[in-house]
């Protein structure tokens, strides 16, 4: 049972929330929608759920026109980024709610609710009121509520974004387990996120969305190795990929008075306005490297993010340890230039170290 969309557009004001979005989702698969905030992820999920009607385009599910099916008959489940539950019901009643709507037998409901509680680790919390739970527990309740239905389409709209770091890690781990555990057999799982790391970890088919437009579709590995444009490279890397305006001539990459020998995959590019893309993790501190000035140093977890400047070129370097720097310190860095990407003046991928597109073709 496939979920197919053709040219979905939604433009409630002067901006597109969805712009000619098409996709073909197959049952048993996990799809990750990656995009920055306001890129149209929630709009897309709401359209699939039936909470929004697109201005144009079609959605078909199992060969039937899905747009004609009212929300309450669509058999979808959705987990939102805010923890949405019923404030007037306790945990048990919350999870039983969708089953009661289907007028199931009380004993079946009971079994299913208990199963769901177990799978999200909330056994023993049945009688609690929703307001007495922590954010993570509230999100577990809404996850359990969506699991209990055995919906054909399960939508998760940035479910981890409002949780603190620890809980996010923990729940993400549990998600992976749940998704791999047969749940996805006949379910279409659609997961939206702003976090490229989450995309990589979930390892599903990725749809990169920006300003309501699908920029690229592919496996997590493909998106990581061969982002088809500057935009995708920015969205799918955190911190965003460094973009350096450089010239390639005589087999050398030149910028800000620096000369780097061009690796093979870049050596044949000669056109003007090239942009070199390099991940922040592909730059390292090195005594014999090029000198840059520290603009800002932020420590994030066990990483240090160095914002550096030389002339008009600004770059970010991530270092896998906690180091202290002062603003205006001089540091020397080395570029792992063999891992560099090149983009055309119009932002299209020109060459990738993974051979997605070569200077040649």
């Amino acid at each position, binding site marked *: 049972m496939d979920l197919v969309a053709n040219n979905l557009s939604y433009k409630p004001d002067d901006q597109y929330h969805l712009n000619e979005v098409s996709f073909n989702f197959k049952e048993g698969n996990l799809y990750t929608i990656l995009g920055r905030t306001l890129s149209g992820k929630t709009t897309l999920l709401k359209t699939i759920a039936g909470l929004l009607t697109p201005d144009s385009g079609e959605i078909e599910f199992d060969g039937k026109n899905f747009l004609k099916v009212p*929300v309450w008959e669509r058999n979808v489940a*959705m987990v939102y980024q805010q923890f949405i539950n*019923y*404030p007037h019901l306790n945990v048990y009643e919350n999870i039983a709610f969708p089953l*009661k709507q289907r007028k199931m037998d009380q004993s079946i409901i009971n079994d299913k609710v208990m199963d769901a509680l177990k799978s999200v680790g909330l056994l023993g919390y049945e009688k609690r009121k929703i307001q007495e739970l922590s954010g993570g527990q509230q999100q577990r309740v809404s996850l359990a509520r969506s699991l209990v239905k055995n919906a054909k389409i399960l939508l998760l709209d940035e479910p981890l974004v409002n949780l603190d770091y620890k809980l996010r890690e923990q729940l993400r781990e549990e998600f992976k387990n749940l998704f791999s555990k047969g749940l996805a057999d006949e379910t279409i799982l659609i997961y939206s996120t702003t976090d490229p790391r989450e995309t990589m970890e979930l390892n599903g088919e990725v749809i990169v969305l920006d300003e309501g437009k699908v920029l690229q579709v592919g496996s997590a590995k493909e998106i990581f190795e061969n982002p088809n444009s500057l935009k995708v490279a920015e969205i799918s890397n955190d911190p965003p990929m460094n973009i350096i305006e450089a010239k390639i001539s005589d087999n050398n990459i030149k910028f800000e008075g620096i000369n780097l020998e061009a690796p093979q995959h870049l050596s044949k590019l000669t056109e003007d306005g090239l942009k070199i893309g390099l991940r922040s993790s592909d730059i390292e501190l090195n005594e014999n490297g090029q000198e840059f000035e520290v603009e800002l140093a932020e420590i994030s977890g066990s990483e240090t993010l160095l914002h550096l400047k030389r002339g008009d070129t600004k770059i970010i370097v991530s270092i896998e340890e906690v180091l202290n720097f002062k603003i205006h310190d001089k540091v020397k860095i080395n570029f792992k230039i063999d891992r560099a990407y090149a983009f055309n003046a119009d932002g299209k991928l020109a060459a990738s170290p993974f051979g997605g597109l070569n200077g040649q073709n």
Partner: protein
Amino acid sequence: MNFKHKYFFLFPGLFVLIGILIFPIIFVVRLSLSGWNSYNPGLDYIGLENYIRLFTDDPRFWESFFRLSFLSVTTVILQYVIGFALAHMVWKDIKFKRFFRVLFLVPMMTTPVIMTVIWRTFFHESLGPVNDLLSVFGVAPKWLTDPVIAKFTVIIVEVWQWTPFMFLLLLAGLLSLPKEPFLAAAIDGASPIRKFIYVTFPLMAPISIGAIIIRLIEASKIMDTVYVLTSGGPGTSTETSSFYIFIKGLREFQMGYAASMSFTYLIIMIISLTIIAKVLTKVLLKE
């Protein structure tokens, strides 16, 4: 907070309270123990005589009390149902929403006594427009002079006058509800009707209880409508407690006896409203 002069700051408020509430209540209790009437105006002491008369020898008071209970409960239920329906209607996105929101409030902006005079004219049995219209069908109900129909006339006028108040409270309640549970309910497979039963109505329970109690307190004082519309008639068939107390106290000047009725009425109202609030909380909030 331990502050030496804190009681000093309570005095202004306490003073007003004593003047307008505590003293009058104590005075009514004292008055109810006297035989003050037009022949014998004075605070003599006759013990519980007034109360004994009230409880053993005045069926008219109890009849008017049960009539009042019937009228207030019926009108409040009708106001709640109609008010909720109207509020629910303009809560959703419909055309001319703002227009309807104002329209439904118009009755509340009118002067009750004047409006009741107009209603009386409406329902006038031989000259009123209502019976003029109904004469087409060959019927002419005695809106104001039939003992049973007159009660319903009072109910119609009360409901017309005060439903907007209920509407306003319930609309404010609906607008303050969180939107998320409704999203969830739609996705969870609840049709619009089930959504109302399982989400809207339970979420509205606390506001509903408040609105019903406020209206019950107000409705248990029904007096002006009856006074203008039927003067308690025909006979005593639309007479309410407050109207009866008014007749005894301010027309017949049996001040002592009227005071004992007022005090009894106050105690009954406090007890019954407490019970009603408890029951409503239990039924609607399941607590």
